[in-house]
């Protein structure tokens, strides 16, 4: 196992949260640098740690602590996989709106630490909107909680939000209380084909205009410069049918080729969306205002680059075999108002490419946060933004 290209000396898998805290406490006392790992589906993310002695896996902390279907919340240990949580929820016709690279492997803690998302973010919000409470093991081994078990709560600082996307640099996520959702009675999709990025954005604007409420809008490159865009609706049957009719009407008006994809085709596309996150040597995640991102995708040469495009979220994942430091640099210059994160790259590119790009203006506050949580700088040092 390598963490952003660096191989640790040891891998420890504590059997429970108490043991995990004890392990971390000891590493901290011994001044041994460490990092945390869940299912290991995003080990490429971030810069190479400056030092790494031990990797602590959360995977054996994998119990359901409390499931309250009537309250639509579940509290689980962070090493549970997303698929395992979903299996528990399915018994009560509920689900977790986490789109992750590999649900069978990706853990809850890992999904939170990497701020994983996919198409359903449009309807259900980012991961941070779906967490109501958290327990962490701080770098010094102390267990601390934030938030609670109820869906509405403003007592104390929102520690759960701070842990989302922090890549375990402020400690390990060891349990979380999550907001879950009722499964829909019905679902349907409309596929719009052979669109430019501008067309895709145009379709999104019309969807907003018509006050439709899609679950997801995901566009896939068609192998060339254009996109196939899939719009999914969920809900009660009548509402879904009505939205599909409206969507087809919009497509006709815009003279876009629209069809109803078969379930098999939808499964293939979903698989493609996931594969984009795990297979290519280069993976670059873009975030920008929807209009800015559409312009970027239009103006830059996208030949030979795999694209999963979330037009209404303002996000795109670009994958390929032969990107390099100069490509990344050019894209970063072209997209000045947004983020360009290199989520995976070949080992030999690591020296030349900063995974995050220039840190934001608030970085001094972030650095201070890191220093306060991890005064010795032992927890995943150097992996995060700006060398944090």
């Amino acid at each position, binding site marked *: 196992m390598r963490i952003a290209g660096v191989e640790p000396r040891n891998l420890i898998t504590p059997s429970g949260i108490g043991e995990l805290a004890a392990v971390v406490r000891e590493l901290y006392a011994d001044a041994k640098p460490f990092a945390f790992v869940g299912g290991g589906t995003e080990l490429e993310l971030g810069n190479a740690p400056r030092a790494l002695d031990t990797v602590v896996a959360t995977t054996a902390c994998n119990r359901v602590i409390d499931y309250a279907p009537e309250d639509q919340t579940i509290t689980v240990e962070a090493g549970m996989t997303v698929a395992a949580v979903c299996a528990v929820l399915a018994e009560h016709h509920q689900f977790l709106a986490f789109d992750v690279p590999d649900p069978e492997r990706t853990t809850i803690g890992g999904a939170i630490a990497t701020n994983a998302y996919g198409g359903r973010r449009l309807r259900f919000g980012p991961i941070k909107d779906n967490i109501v409470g958290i327990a962490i093991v701080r770098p010094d081994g102390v267990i601390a909680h934030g938030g*609670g078990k109820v869906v*509405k709560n403003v007592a104390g600082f929102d520690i759960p939000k701070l842990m989302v996307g922090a890549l375990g640099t402020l400690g390990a996520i060891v349990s979380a209380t999550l907001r879950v959702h009722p499964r829909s009675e019905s679902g349907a999709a409309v596929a719009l084909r052979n669109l430019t990025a501008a067309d895709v954005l145009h379709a999104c604007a019309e969807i907003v205009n018509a006050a439709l409420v899609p679950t997801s809008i995901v566009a896939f490159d068609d192998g060339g410069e254009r996109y196939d865009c899939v719009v999914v609706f969920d809900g009660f049957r009548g509402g879904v049918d009505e939205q599909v009719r409206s969507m087809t009407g919009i497509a006709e008006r815009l003279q876009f080729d629209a069809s109803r994809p078969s379930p098999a085709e939808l499964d293939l596309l979903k698989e493609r969306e996931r594969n984009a996150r795990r297979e290519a040597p280069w993976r670059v995640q873009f975030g920008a205002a929807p209009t*800015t991102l559409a312009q970027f995708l239009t103006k830059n040469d996208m030949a030979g680059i795999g694209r999963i495009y979330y037009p209404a979220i303002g996000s795109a994942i670009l994958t390929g075999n032969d990107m390099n430091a100069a490509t990344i640099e050019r894209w970063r210059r072209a997209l000045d108002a947004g983020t360009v994160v290199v989520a995976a790259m070949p080992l030999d590119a690591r020296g030349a490419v900063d995974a995050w790009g220039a840190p934001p203006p608030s970085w001094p*506050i972030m650095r201070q*946060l890191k220093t306060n949580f991890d005064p010795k700088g032992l927890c995943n040092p150097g992996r995060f933004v*700006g060398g944090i």
Partner: protein
Amino acid sequence: MAAVSDFIAIVGERNTITEGSELRTYEADGLPGFRVRPAVVVLPETTEQVAACVRLARRLGMPIVPRGSGTGLSGGALPVEGCVVIGLSRMKAILEVDLPNLRMRVQPGVINLNISRHLAAAGYYYAPDPSSQSVCSIGGNVAENSGGAHCLKYGFTVNHAVGATIVTAEGEIVSIGAHGGEPDTLGYDLMGVFVGSEGLLGIVTEVVVRILRTPQATRTIFATFPTTDEAGAAVSSIISAGIVPAAIEMMDQLAIEAIVAATRVDWPLDVGAALLMDVDGVVAEVEHTADAAIAALRAAGAIEIRSPRDDGERTLMWKGRKGAFAAMGRISPNYYVQDGVIPRKEIVPVLRDIARLASEAGLRVANVFHAGDGNLHPLILYDGRIPGQEALAEHVGGEILKTCIRYGGSITGEHGVGFDKAAYMGDLFTEDDLATMQLVRCAFDRDVIFNPNKVFPTPRLCGDRPGVYHPHATELAEVAGRG
């Protein structure tokens, strides 16, 4: 006083308040019973002026208490001795509307409702709708992570305020979160932790919010019940059936009485409880959801179910609900507002416990609250002219909070901890939890100059780390159960 002239030099004489009845306004916020006279109040008009005031206060060693509209109910804007209150009410410009990217940039003094009013003609709105939305400011909403009736479906301020310009404790102007419509920012989610930080981490001088398209249709349903038991059961059955209404509000008999007395709404007085509910979305979905909700209400034992005849009546119904706190004046000389949260399935037993606490104390308690997310607002009625009644009301309020904690809930769902509830934080969080929050605070404000005596039960300076390690109870039990 040298300090005053220095503040005047920054914000001008007309924006500096040092005496008289005007200063009295700033001695308290919406939490009654506590008043502290600030040394000076400044009302800056620009971000630069806010920054200069912070730097000056820092140089003078004056604590800083930020303030929005002063409608907060937990004493978050209560001054401390010798402080400067920095009020944001003069910064009320709408700076930018970006409809294609569903974003809007506003100054902190903009009144919550004015955001939606500004967007209404174009068919958009801002979702969080605290009952005080016609007077509370967006800056205050950010500080408190304000909620409101429609947060059940759409989320709270933290889900809608995505970026901000803040003035730090060093008097620096820093942008946090997403300003340009991008979905995420690099690094830690500072905006996520800033929202709801109750004025302890900085002063917000610009806010970027998400805006939403107005739904195709909204249907309002009003239902009455013999007692709060049936109404509470109806809420549980609607939520467990997977129906997601935009809002479900409950009012008990006393609350209905007060609302009817204060407004023209024609609700019956001989019922034990009422629910006011909105469902919204695409037309066919709304019809289906409304029918399913009505069936659930009926099955739970509703006496009467009706929908408003027109938009006018709908507005009136919601006005009645949102004006419920103020309406209490019709039935009681004084009242104490409580704000607690419980798991939604526990509404019925908790309301019974509250009724028992009230009757033991010989006081009346009216309940009007966000039932859909279990956010209770018991209004403890008392007569301040009778010696001891105010203290008794506060005591009942405290017991209600302990009840919420016992049922696995929280001491505040939307009003904040502020000054009022700092003492209860230790019942909800461990020392280690609170120390961890202090690590966050000290990253923003190491000298603790912002709102020094709020939220945390025991004042602690940055750099004070708790002593030797002691195992957490959950650690010993091999669970970390509270999440």
